[in-house]
């Protein structure tokens, strides 16, 4: 049963409750960070969309294997990048392979660079990741001065 929202008083009361549900103690900080996110807009960038994420996969969710790695696949017409997170290590593979430079990008932090081997494989460990374990990140794949960015994703920190 919906509250009466056809009267002005009823609608105001419903709005008050809705606004209360969307409050956050650090709202202003969140807004400022989100507004700064605009500087990451690059109109000419090539985007690789997230096409698979084990965290959203119903099958793997029902298995509930505590030690399952998280697997993500980003793709566009020309490139595919698979990321696997096992413990504190990020292992990745770029297809097609070749001379590829991977950059892990995190807002407000120095980007981390790693070169893929001839099979397109690369890995990044916790010691080099540091603060990457928290907050949004994305991967930049550079080949022959052509850059592709993955969609932003979030690595929840270990509790």
């Amino acid at each position, binding site marked *: 049963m919906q509250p009466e929202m056809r009267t002005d008083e009823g609608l105001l009361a419903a709005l008050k409750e809705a606004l209360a549900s*969307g409050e956050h103690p*650090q*709202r202003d900080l969140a807004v400022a960070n989100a507004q700064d996110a*605009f500087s990451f807009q690059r109109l000419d*960038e090539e985007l690789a969309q997230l096409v698979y994420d084990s965290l959203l996969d119903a099958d793997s969710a029902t298995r509930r294997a505590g030690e399952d790695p998280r697997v993500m696949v980003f793709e566009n017409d020309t490139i595919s990048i698979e990321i696997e997170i096992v413990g504190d290590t990020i292992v990745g593979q770029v297809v097609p392979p070749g001379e590829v430079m991977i950059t892990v990008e995190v807002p407000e932090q120095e980007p981390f660079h790693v070169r893929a081997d001839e099979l397109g494989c690369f890995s990044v460990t916790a010691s080099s990741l540091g603060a990457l374990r928290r907050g949004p990140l994305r991967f930049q794949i550079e080949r022959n001065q052509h850059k592709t960015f993955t969609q932003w994703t979030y690595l*929840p920190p270990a509790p």
Partner: protein
Amino acid sequence: MLLVPLASNAPEGRAVEISELATAELVLAAAAGSRAAWDELVERFTPLVFSITARYRLSYADAADVSQTVWLQLVQHLPQLREPKALPGWIATTVGHECVRVLRARHRVTTVDPQTDGRLQEDSRDGAWPESDEELLRQERHAALLAGFAELSQRQRELLLLLLADPPVSYIEISDRTGIPVGAIGPTRARALERLRRSPALAALLGTDLIES
């Protein structure tokens, strides 16, 4: 006062006040590179984002991270958003996905003893707590109201927020802060609420209600 020249449907050379633009126009302006339009989008839709993270019982810290991830995704996604009016729906869906990710990742790394820990039963639903119909309706209503509220002009939003302030703010003070004459507060309030009621999200909700009753 933030002004943006509109490339699309505005008469040539005319500048429009950002806060008066509809969401769809803001999306187009932001996709074309307007930081001011982007700032306004963030301002308008942040309550919707946090309303949804609260629905998934995320901690404030996780909610802030989900918010930032979603806004970063939107920056990238803006040029592909074919239907700018669909932004509230895109936000709701994307925030929901990110919340599920956070909850599932937590379950993976938390070791629990299935014999003694009752959380397992709850965890196995991956954050989908059993919600009563009433609670689901409430959440749906919140999302529709917040999406509709985002469609109001800044002046209208400011007025309604002042009218809802706790402790209450007097009409004289509201008039001081908004520049709306005391005698015009009532009619302005009525117009703002009518616009809220007619916003697509709320009109859809109220329409369903009508059929049910």
